C-alpha cells in the first residue's frame, strides 16, 4: 500500500458489497415473492433490481429486499418502494424490462414512473 488513494479505491470497490448489512438505507425496494409472485416472474425482477441499483451506484442508499404475498395477486409481480417521509409507491405487473426505468427515474431521479403504478394499471 503506497498511498491513501489506493486504500480509498479498495474501500469504494467494497462499500457496495457490505452496505447490504448496514441497514441504514434511505430507500427500500420490496419485491413480493410469495408463490403467486414467483409464478409470474418476481425473481428475475428482484435480481434485476439488485443489479441495476448496484450499476447506478445506489447500493449505499437503496436496499432491495423481498416480502411475502402483498395481497393483490392478480397484479403480481408487485414491487413497493418505501422512502422515509414519502408515501409508499406500489408498482404492479412488473417485468425485468421495466426495472431500469424505475431505477433511473424514480430511485435516482426521484420521479415516480406513474405508468407502472398499481393505481394506474387498475
Amino acid at each position, binding site marked *: 500500500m503506497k498511498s491513501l488513494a489506493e*486504500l480509498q479505491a479498495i474501500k469504494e470497490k*467494497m462499500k457496495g458489497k*457490505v452496505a*447490504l448489512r448496514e441497514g441504514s438505507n434511505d430507500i427500500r425496494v420490496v419485491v*413480493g415473492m410469495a408463490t403467486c409472485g*414467483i409464478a409470474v416472474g418476481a425473481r428475475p425482477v*428482484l435480481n434485476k433490481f439488485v443489479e441495476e441499483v448496484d450499476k447506478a451506484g445506489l447500493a449505499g442508499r437503496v436496499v*432491495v429486499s*423481498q416480502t411475502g404475498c402483498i395481497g393483490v395477486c392478480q397484479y403480481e409481480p408487485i414491487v413497493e418502494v418505501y422512502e422515509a417521509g414519502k408515501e409508499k409507491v406500489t408498482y404492479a405487473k412488473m417485468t425485468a424490462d421495466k426495472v431500469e426505468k424505475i431505477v433511473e427515474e424514480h430511485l435516482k431521479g426521484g420521479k415516480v414512473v406513474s405508468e407502472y403504478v398499481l393505481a394506474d394499471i387498475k
Partner: protein
Amino acid sequence: MIRAHILVCGGTGCTSSGSVSIQQKFAESLEKNGLAEEVKIVQTGCFGLCALGPVVIVHPDGTFYSRVEIDDVDEIVTEHLLKGRVVERLVYSDTGSDEEVDVKNVALSDTAFYKTQNRVVLRNCGVINPESIDEYIAMDGYAALGKVLTEMKPEDVIQCITDSGLRGRGGGGFPTGRKWALTAPNQADQKYVVCNADEGDPGAFMDRSVLEGDPHCLVEAMAIAGYAIGATEGYVYVRAEYPIAVARLQIAIDQAREYGLLGKNIFGSGFDFDLHIRLGAGAFVCGEETALMTSIEGNRGEPRPRPPYPAVKGLFGKPTVENNVETFANVPQIILRGAEWFASMGTEKSKGTKVFALGGKIKNTGLVEIPMGTTLREIIEDIGGGIPNGKKFKAAQTGGPSGGCIPASLMDTEVDYDNLIAIGCMMGSGGLIVMDEDNCMVDMAKFFLEFTVDESCGKCTPCRVGTKRLLEMLDKITSGKGTLEDIDRIEELCNYIKANSLCGLGQTAPNPVLSTLNFFRDEYISHVVDKKCPAGVCKDLLTFTIDKDKCIGCGMCARNCPADAIIKTDYVAPGHKLPSYEILADKCVKCGACIGSCKFKAISKK
C-alpha cells in the same frame, strides 16, 4: 448479483454448537434452490448472544435467527430467501418491553440485549468476514493508520490517545497515552509493541472475540502504536487454546503484508512495521506483563521485579509498550473519530466503553459492550435478561481471581475503574460472573483461590506458600472445622500476601476472600458457628433427610442412590400403603441423586 447475505456466527461459542455444519448446509440448500448466485454466505465473528447460538442473520432485512438447527436451514432458504417470508418461530425478538411486537420487524438493534449496548470495540464483530481484509477496509479499516502516517506526528498520536482518556482494559486501568508517552522518548536501537492476548481469567472471552471477529483492527492499532513510540516490531502473545483466534490473526497478518500495510515503507511514509505471533501455553501468570515478555523471550514465564518498567527495559531488554487486545481495539476509532468523541462516553475518569463477558446465573450469557458508568443493575436485569428460574440475585464477581464481588445492595453502582476499586472490587479484564441464592460465597472464594494456588508460579514465597495456607484455612471452614479465630487469621494472612508478593498475581489473589468476608461475613460465621452452609453447597455441612410423612415408599430414591445409603423402614405414614425410606448418614455421599429422583419432594438437604 448478490442480493442477500446470510451471516453465520463463526465465534467459538457458535462453532461448538454446530455453526460450521449449518454453514455448509446453507451452501447446499442455496445450491439446491438455485440461489447460490444471488445469496452470499459470510462467516463472521461473535455476535455476542452466545446463549442463543448458533446465530444467523439474514440481510438486507436484518432478521436475527437464534438457536438455528440443521433442519431449519432448508426452511430459512425456501421460505425467507426464496419467498420472502420470515421464519417467525426462529426469530429472537425479546425487546424487554411488555408491548406486543411484530416479530418480523424486530431488528437486532431493538432487542433488549443490544439496545443499551454501544459497540466501539466490537463494531465489526458479527458484521464483517474476519478473514477478508477488503471487508475490513470497507468499514474504514486501515484509514486510521493511513491518517497517522500521512498527517500526524508521533507526538500528535500520543496526545490524541492521552486526550481521549483511554485506560488499559487488561485490568489495571493505566492511562494508555501516558504509557506510550513514557516509552517514546527512550532511545534504543530497537523498541517493541506487545499485545497481551493471554486472557487468563476464568470465564472471560472478550479478547478472544475481538481476535476472532476483527483481527485486522488489532494489526492496525499495533502499527499505530509502533509509529507513536518508534517501534518497528510487534508481538502478539496469544494462548494456544484459542485456535480460531490464532488462525484468523495469522490470516490478517498475511493479508496486511500482502497489501503492504505491514512491512517496509507503509503508505510511502518511510515507516516500517511487522508483527509476529507467539503462542502461550495457558499459564495465568503469563498474562502478567513482565512474565509475558519473559515467555516471549523463550524463557520460563516468571515475573520480574519492576522497576525497571517495560517502558525502559521490556522485551529483550528494550523499551516496550504492552497493551491489552481491547485497549488496542479502541485506538483506530479514537484516531478517526477524535479524542473528544471518545471522551464523551463514560464517566469522569473512565472514558469509552467496556466489553464484559456475562456468565453464571444469567439468562443472556454472552458478550456485551456498554458505556463505562452503566449500572450493574442495567447490565444484569436489562441487557442480561435477569436471573433464570425465578431465583434471586446475590452477587456478581468482576475481575476474576484478582477481583471481588458486588453484592445486591450495591447493584446501582456505576461500573467504572474507580467505583469498583472503592468497593474492594476491580474491573479486571471484563469477566462478570453472576451468582444467585444457590451460590455459597465461601465456596466461591475457595474456587478462585484454588485457581491461584494452581497458577502461582512459585517464584516468591508469600504467593506460593501463602495462598496454599489460605486455601487450607478456607477448606477447614467449609468442612465445618473452622473457628472464629480462623476468620481473623485468614484476614491477617490475606493482607500479608497482598503486601509482600512479587507480582500482581499474588498481590491480588486474596481479593475474592477479602471481598466476600467484607460483604458476606455472616455466611462465614454460619459455617463456623452454626456449622451450616446457608446456600446448601458445602457438602460436609449438609445432611440429607427424608420426610417420613411425605414419603410414599415408592423406592425411587433407593434405586438411584449410588452409595446404597437409603433403606426401607418399618414406618407407614398415615394414609400411605407402603413403608417410608430413610437415609443412613454415615453412608450418604451427598450427591443429591435422591432429591432429583423424588417426585413427592420428600427429601431435603440442610
